[in-house]
């Protein structure tokens, strides 16, 4: 009965491909891709501005209308990631944070890029502005935020550009 235990391991991978619809939120991604606009929604009853957008207000159960939001905002909270998932490990260190766009009530999770990525540079209260990829595909990774004072520098790079406002 003292037979040595030998384990057997099998290499495998689960992969599923998608072409998924963004449904009622589609307009946000289309406007981001085509016009570098950041659209939120405003509840027709309570007036709350939703960002990320939802076409129905979850508080009032009434429709919400599309509204264009400012491309400037304030960092509410942030972090710098130094160890991460297999999908992002090549990108470390990277900054992410929750940004309240001027005029919005909810904060959006986004990448915060900086030429000097240290906690003090991307801390709460810092003003940031959206920078867009020139090559956009209608995904959240089409844009990111940079500290206001680095904005001109970022949009002068060949792969990026500024938004409208």
């Amino acid at each position, binding site marked *: 009965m003292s037979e040595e235990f030998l384990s057997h391991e099998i290499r495998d991978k689960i992969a599923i491909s998608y072409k998924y619809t963004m449904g009622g939120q589609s307009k946000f991604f289309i406007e981001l891709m085509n016009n570098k606009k950041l659209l939120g929604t405003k509840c027709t009853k309570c007036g709350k501005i939703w960002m990320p957008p939802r076409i129905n207000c979850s508080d009032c159960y009434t429709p919400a209308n599309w509204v264009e939001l400012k491309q400037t905002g304030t960092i509410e*909270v942030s*972090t*710098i990631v130094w160890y991460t*998932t297999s999908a992002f490990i090549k990108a470390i260190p990277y900054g992410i944070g929750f940004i309240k766009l001027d005029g919005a009530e909810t904060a959006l999770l986004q990448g915060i890029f900086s030429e000097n990525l240290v906690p003090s540079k991307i801390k*709460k209260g810092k003003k940031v502005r959206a920078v867009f990829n020139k090559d956009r595909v209608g995904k*959240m990774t089409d844009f990111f935020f940079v500290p206001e004072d680095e904005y001109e520098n970022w949009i002068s790079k060949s792969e990026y550009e500024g938004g409208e406002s």
Partner: protein
Amino acid sequence: MQKVAIIGIGITPFKARYLDKTYFELAYDATKLALEDANKNGADISHKNIQSTVYGIYNELFERQFMPDIFTNSYLGMNNKPGTRIATGGATGGYTVRMAYAEVASGLSDLCLCIGLEKCNDCYDEQTGVTTPEVLNAIAYSADMTYEYPMGMMAASSYVSMVNAHYEEFGNPTEEQMAYVSVKNHGNAMNNPKAQSPMKITVEDVMNSRIICYPFKMLDCCLYSEASAALILASEEKVRELKIEKPVWITGVAAANTDCFIGNREDMGRLYSNIYAAKAAYKMAGLDYNRIKSLIDLAELHDAFSGQEVISYEELGFVPFGEGGSWIEKTFEKSGEGPWIEGELPCCPSGGLIGCGHAVGATGIMSTGEAALQLRGEAGKHQVTIEKGRAISHSIGGPGAAYAAVIVMANEEGLKQT
């Protein structure tokens, strides 16, 4: 509603990796341990007496199997009986206890198996040749896949957002205060033979460990584990019929889901799910939220990250908002060398997630089982003094730690005093 008691507890060791067991084989081990424990506790039952099962299994990608519960059901010999799976992220264990409680309290089942399991480290990252980045990736799929995952959001960055927001509001927890939790929980695990990360470390060790996600460092974070934990829940009638010697009564169960989008929350530095779940669970148990610290003997908390434990002290009502940091500091000044199983309210005497490891679906069931063993006076070397006869376990998890569950338990003495 019928009264419900924990009559059997079975916890496998929490390990980085079991090469000799699959997830359903781990579940079998925990179930067998729980049945043996129930029989030591006066019962004379086998798996054939179990009337229903509630499974806590978080992540299909870990198990490499959708609907892993039905395969576990087969291996446990539970065919032709009801079995239901719960999956609520890191709070899966607590939520599973809640639903198993409901099975028995409602009268649907007199004898219910409440079992959690997880086997994460079968995930493997071919590019780095280790498991962790792929485990983290499998977890990151719990973030919103359109708005959050593409930003590189993951478990640590999600929790750290709340901790950083709390720090901005109250000036704590500081990095040192977080390190105290790490020293305490790694240290407490030294007395728990089932723990994955028992370590005698110093505050400096924590401060000098590698940065993961500012300001969390390696030793502020729990490790992912493989394990299974099982409880056998019985109705009061069954407890009497089986002549159970030390029933541990579940006197309060509650859960709440706060907004999974952290940016939608009014207060990013607070987990309202914890507050709602704690208040409701204590109320059900007839305990006052504002006095809870003096009404229980211990708390097994969900310390996935050290800073989160500090914030939980406040949300669960142990100390007022903003005073979590100074509370752990006081505890530490008093018993800096440990073990931290005495004092005002011992938190995570088992070592918690930081000390034991985090086998997601099994974790909250392990914490509940640990608290129940404490109330039976059978926790072993990390036994705390039981005076009030009451304890709580706490589970949180999911995107932005949106899910929270709190379980209140009492032994026969604790029940009389209520």
